[in-house]
């Protein structure tokens, strides 16, 4: 069962009529016909259930839905049940095309270069799909991807999407169902013990390379407007706090923020919270306050 599309037979007969005599295309034609035969296999398991649902719904609402209308709705549902599939070719080449059962081997689809790879994304129906690459006019299959041999001994790649499950939606559901969030052992304000080497003896995680470029360390343009003009920051550095070494109990922090369409880098001079830097003045004020209270 390489394809479950009920309309495949008509498509295929069309293709068969225009078939030419090259060996490759004959091979493809064979393959298509085979899948065509498979399309007479029973519908996917979901279909009867859906049909039942629709019929129940129509009974409940008191409206009569004809058999054709139900078919139409089912076809719609099937159209929606598509899985995005990423085809990848990493075997080099200059011009790479892909073709397969998903288009009845009818056309060469150019793949897009992405780095060293070539990619093609297509939404596919559930089921098995065979495909093959055409790399610089040569038919190739990807050896690291699953392969299947056709009756003529040609080797194609294939992918089986019959049991594909959407992970994203499913996980979100399970999260809501279970009460993970209330479990304090997983989420809480647990402070690791500073004495415990398990927590603090480890190497800190490496700094992402894009954060090494510090905007405050780059020279400013000599343009003293309202504020000193700076280089335009990379967006990944926004809202990251930079800190200079603490000197004389003074901490200098830098953070770049977006403000409307502009960027503001604030350099903030702050005393350490527990520092007694203004000791005498502060102490005298404290003494006076105490005296005033008594």
């Amino acid at each position, binding site marked *: 069962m390489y394809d479950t599309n009920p309309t495949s037979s008509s498509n295929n007969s069309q293709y068969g009529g225009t078939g030419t005599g090259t060996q490759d295309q004959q091979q493809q034609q064979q393959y298509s016909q085979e899948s065509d035969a498979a399309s007479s296999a029973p519908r996917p398991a979901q279909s009867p259930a859906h049909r039942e649902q629709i019929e129940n719904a129509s009974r409940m609402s008191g409206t009569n839905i004809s058999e054709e209308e139900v078919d139409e709705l089912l076809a719609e549902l099937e159209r929606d049940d598509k899985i995005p599939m990423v085809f990848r070719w990493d075997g080099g080449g200059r011009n790479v095309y892909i073709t397969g059962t998903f288009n009845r081997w009818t056309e060469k689809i150019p793949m897009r270069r992405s780095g060293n790879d070539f990619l093609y994304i297509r939404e596919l129906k559930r089921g098995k799909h065979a495909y093959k690459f055409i790399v610089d006019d040569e038919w190739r299959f990807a050896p690291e991807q699953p392969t299947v041999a056709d009756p003529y001994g040609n080797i194609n790649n294939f992918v089986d999407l019959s049991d594909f499950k959407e992970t994203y939606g499913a996980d979100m559901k399970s999260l809501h169902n279970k009460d993970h969030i209330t479990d304090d052992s997983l989420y809480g304000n647990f402070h690791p013990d500073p004495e415990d080497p398990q927590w603090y003896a480890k190497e800190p995680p490496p700094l992402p390379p894009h954060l090494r470029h510090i905007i405050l360390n780059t020279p400013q343009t000599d343009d003293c407007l*309202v504020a000193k003009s700076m280089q335009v920051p990379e967006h990944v550095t926004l809202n990251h706090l930079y800190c200079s070494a603490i000197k004389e109990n*003074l901490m200098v922090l830098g953070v770049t923020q977006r403000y409307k369409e502009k960027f*503001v*880098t604030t350099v903030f*001079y*702050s005393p350490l919270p527990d520092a007694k*830097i203004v000791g005498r003045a502060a102490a*005298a004020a404290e003494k006076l306050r105490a*005296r005033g209270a008594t």
Partner: protein
Amino acid sequence: MDANAAANNGDASANANANATQRGYDSTLPAGVEADLEHRLQEMRMGGDGRRGSHDGGTSDEDNDDEDGADAVVAAFMTEADYAEQGGGAGANSGDGADGGGAGGAFDAQREGRRVISLFLRDSSCYDLVPHSSKVVVFDRNIPIRLSYYALVEHEIGAAPLWDPLSQTISGVITTLDFIDMLRHGHKSDTVVELLDSHSVSSWRSLVLQLFEDASMVQCLTEAGMPAVEAARLAAEELRERQAKEDFTSANAYSDLVSIDPESSLYDSCAALKSQKLHWIPIVDVKGQVCVGVLTHLAALQYLVTEFCEDRQLFEQPIQSLGIGTFATEGTSLHTATLNTPVHEILELLSVKQIWCVPILNRQRKPLAVYSRTNIIDLVSHNSIENSLDMPLGRLIFGESYGEHLIDGKPDTGKSSMHSDSTASGAESSLGLPSDMETTASESELGIPSRMRAHTCLVTDTLQQIFIKFAEVRVHSLLYVDDRGDLVGVITLSDLLGYFIDD
């Protein structure tokens, strides 16, 4: 004469002064109106001579020294009402408003120029001024004064907004004027060191305000071991004196300051700068708790010069006829100093006389340098701050190499052959200065730091030329000189922008 002819025929290319503010831009007036205006201008020019006498009597005396044809005619363009409107001038023009009369209702380039610029300022917001990416330095109120001083020096800025960790807001701004006052009062009471080291910005301000409200606290505070009480007492006393003179604005230096919203117009912001006699206002988005920048006159001017478009000849009036700036008159002289003046005396002038800068003159009384409020950040670079205050300015600038012979006032013969134009502006040097200027060149040859360089302009320069000059040299003040190179006045950006703001 030439300038006016160009104004009349409306041909920008014919005018040598065509420049940045006159880039291609459709005139806001329809052709018919323009023709009408030209006609009126023509009429006014005809009647100019008749009114001339009354104006010359009113303008300051430099005008009488050399009668210039163009100058006189342009002066005649002004109506009496305009004289009355002039703000920011020294005593020189104060009596003019009483003359009354004048050509009311006629087109007036001066009035129109003033109108279009205030319109432009109203249409621009502070947000427009902020660079695409910028740096703002913010101090916690509780950082020690000495460290905040060093931080200003490090970032080469004149003011920083203050963050109040209790209220979690930007609650004020610390400027070089604050430091000037601290150094002055500290110097007088001999407590500079403890003031700088033992006080935070916040504790100093609250101490001064405490003494301002209750002078009898001195004893009590001293007993409690509060540092620099004597300096604070002097500051509080001065504050009281100023308030007695109904000069409430100076009290702002110790209390919390206004900020402006990024969306407020440039006009309102400049009006706030003018009315509160400020040089810095933090631009704060209170909702977002973001300090976007600190507004200065210089920023406003640079924005104006780069963004403002006007192809009519509206700014050709000589600056002197507009009375923008402070001029020396017979009764009053400008506050000046020399290289021999001790630094603390200069600081005294800056703060007590409420002036932005003090021109530094050489022995021939020609301008040599300018010491402005922002120059106090240079006090750090040479010596400890506390030791710098008693030094003559020359020693501070040039270090030990500043000879005793100059301090004693003996003539310096060694380097008299050297020429210098480092302190002279283009306008000045093109005038063929008399020979006595050259003998003093040696002083400037010693190397006035670029931050103290005197930038000069002529009283006969047009408003437009002044704009360009300010944008070019990016300083807050220019010195007016006459054609002999003598100092006749000072213009600051506060004066210039204040001219476009109605009181």
